[in-house]
């Protein structure tokens, strides 16, 4: 048995075992933690604490001033069976769909048009972006007169082409269309600018190659532009979902009247009462802060659900 000669190796330089002082490890970086602390402290005070408090609140009855009364799961039980809450989710989704799909279409068309050679490009970009920074209250007042039944612009147009007038703000579907139109108007330009940014990242060679292969403008659009724009499209969809699910001011201002009825009722048959509007009505009109908190968590779950759907869409894109 051949013995393996013991090679007298110099002892491997044993790395000095680091003295692990986890506490000291964190503490030694205190300057860094301190530097980022303002955000976290502010978030803790104005973000996390209120969120936690609203969860706590949703298990209580509270009129905002008096003593809180433990209510257990009763607020949530009531929420699950609350037809008004479910209809407010329906309203939100319908208005969102009515607003988003025309909006994406119009934004895309606008962006493609802006991307082709036009004069005064910047003027157009500015003009399209303007609705997004206009006060929503002012916009809603203008749209209120546009959609007036007897003296509104919309009905004047309908009558000019020989159609009957529609009581826009008096019928459930009219209300939804009116609110959705307002949102479409407000967001089309914003999204067109984002699409435009996306369009400008598409390499020109691709278009040249397509042209050489004999592709027409329509084919180019559907085979090259659209697939490459998919991430941008998804981004626009995600942003519009977030803003759409939170819609509040648009129906509130458009549908409020100067009578003594609730400003959060959302018009006849509550056709324009979105989720957030319903939350506001329950909390502040009825002084029912416990139930309001439960509604807020219900809205949270709906938003989570939609975030998951969005996430799945993005994931699938990654797998391809």
């Amino acid at each position, binding site marked *: 048995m051949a013995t393996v000669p013991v090679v007298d190796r110099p002892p491997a330089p044993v790395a000095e075992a680091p003295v692990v002082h986890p506490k000291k490890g964190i503490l030694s970086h205190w300057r860094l933690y301190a*530097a980022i602390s303002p955000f976290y402290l*502010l978030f803790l005070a104005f973000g996390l604490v209120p969120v936690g408090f609203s969860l706590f609140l949703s298990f209580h009855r509270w009129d905002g001033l008096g003593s809180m009364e433990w209510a257990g799961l009763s607020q949530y039980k009531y929420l699950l069976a609350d037809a008004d809450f479910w209809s407010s989710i329906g309203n939100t989704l319908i208005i969102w769909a009515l607003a988003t799909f025309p909006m994406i279409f119009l934004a895309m068309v606008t962006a493609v048009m802006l991307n082709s050679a036009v004069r005064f490009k910047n003027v157009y970009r500015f003009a399209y972006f303007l609705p997004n920074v206009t006060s929503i209250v002012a916009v809603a007042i203008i749209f209120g007169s546009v959609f007036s039944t007897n003296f509104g612009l919309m009905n004047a147009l309908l009558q000019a082409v020989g159609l009957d007038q529609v009581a826009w703000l008096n019928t459930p579907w009219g209300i939804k269309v009116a609110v959705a139109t307002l949102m479409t108007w407000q967001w089309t330009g914003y999204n067109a600018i984002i699409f435009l940014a996306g369009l400008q990242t598409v390499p020109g060679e691709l278009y040249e190659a397509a042209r050489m292969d004999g592709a027409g403008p329509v084919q180019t659009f559907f085979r090259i532009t659209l697939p490459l724009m998919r991430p941008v499209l998804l981004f626009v969809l995600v942003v519009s979902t977030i803003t759409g699910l939170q819609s509040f001011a648009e129906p509130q201002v458009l549908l409020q009247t100067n*009578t*003594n009825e609730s400003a959060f*009722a959302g018009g006849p048959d509550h056709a324009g009462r979105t989720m957030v509007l319903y939350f506001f009505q329950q909390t502040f009109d*009825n002084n029912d802060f416990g139930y309001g908190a439960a509604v807020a968590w219900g809205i949270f779950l709906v938003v989570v659900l939609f975030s998951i759907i969005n996430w799945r869409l993005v994931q699938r894109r990654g797998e391809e």
Partner: protein
Amino acid sequence: MLLSRRGLLRAGLAGSAAMALGGLTSGCAVPTGSTGRNMVLWYWSGGLSDTVVEKAKARYDDTVTLEAQQIGGYYRSKLITTLAGRAHIPDIAGLKGEDMASYLPNADQFVDLRTLGADRLKSRYLDWKWQQAVAPDGSLIGLPIDVGPVVHYYQSAVFEKAGLPSEPDDVSAELGTWESFFAAGEQLKKRIPGTFILTDVGSVFEMSIGQGTDRFVDEDRNFIGDQEHVRACWDRAVEAKRRGIVSDIVTGTPDSIAATVKGRLPSQLNASWAAGDLKLQFPKTEGRWRVANCPGGPSNVGGSFLAITKACREPERAFEIITWMLSPENQAHGFVEAGLFPSTPASYAMSKLREPDPFFGDQITMDVYGPAAEQIPVAHNSPYDIALGQPIRDEIKNVGVLGKDPEKAWRDAMSKCRRIADHLGVNL
């Protein structure tokens, strides 16, 4: 100036620490109400006469620095959050009439004005308004600023054209009941097609409820919205719709403004403060309007209070200030300046309130408002009234606007009310 990294760090740290500490201390410290000399008054735009506020500041200047703050936005929620936060609470706070019922269960947040001798001022104010500020435990949490007696505003030329009475006294007398008012609506529609005496059914329901002494929830927390007194108001509103005297225009939209200017909606049942809105919205119609009694008797919409919070360190002084601000003399001024209809009957006879109003064809409108204000019935306002009246109001709107079947609408309203009552702990 160059800011070193360390300096920036220090500033950030100090800032966040101050934030955190500020949040803590203001929560634990003594209520930051008056500190002897400073006294804060919260009200909303148009809630008090600005001149009276200025005069009060000057008048009490040697003892207090009165800081009057106009709070914008959703007033009640701001006041409630501030009270709940126990910091920066105003010493004197305006309480809106429609919110009054929701403050009453928390009367302990306010100074009981009886302890400051309010009882001896009781005769100065309208009794029914005074009662609205009395909490279930008997304490008085506010002094009335104003009231909102409901009247019938109408355009006399349109009424004349339709062959209806057009002088205020005649309209008050001949259109004094709901039945005669509805009949006049039919005549108006027949003589001048496209013209409606009512914009929506909501005003009929609302004013009718206000003419009674019971609303939706009684003093013992029982739901009474399903009883005869509410049903009668409901049926009255439904009848107005059935008789075709209600327009399909939404109140408050540009449509209703255009129709009113054109004389197609020549009549409104609304509170005294709506006179200001009429003047503001329809300046072109000056001189065309008159004021008559509300059909079916006096009703009230709105009208606010001034309260002293528990955070106030000098309640006696604060009470002195609010009783001065709400004296008949100053309330008369509030009416002239801000359209705040006085809660003190003594004001009604004052000469400056009896001046002819050119907007109303030089009518002395006080002759209508005054008696109406004094005859408003005392009704119990429950904190649950808003939540339990809403489904009924919503459904009557559906009947009026969407043409929903009234019987189905009533059943829907009742089933919703029962669910809400059960949830809020109101007895059925």
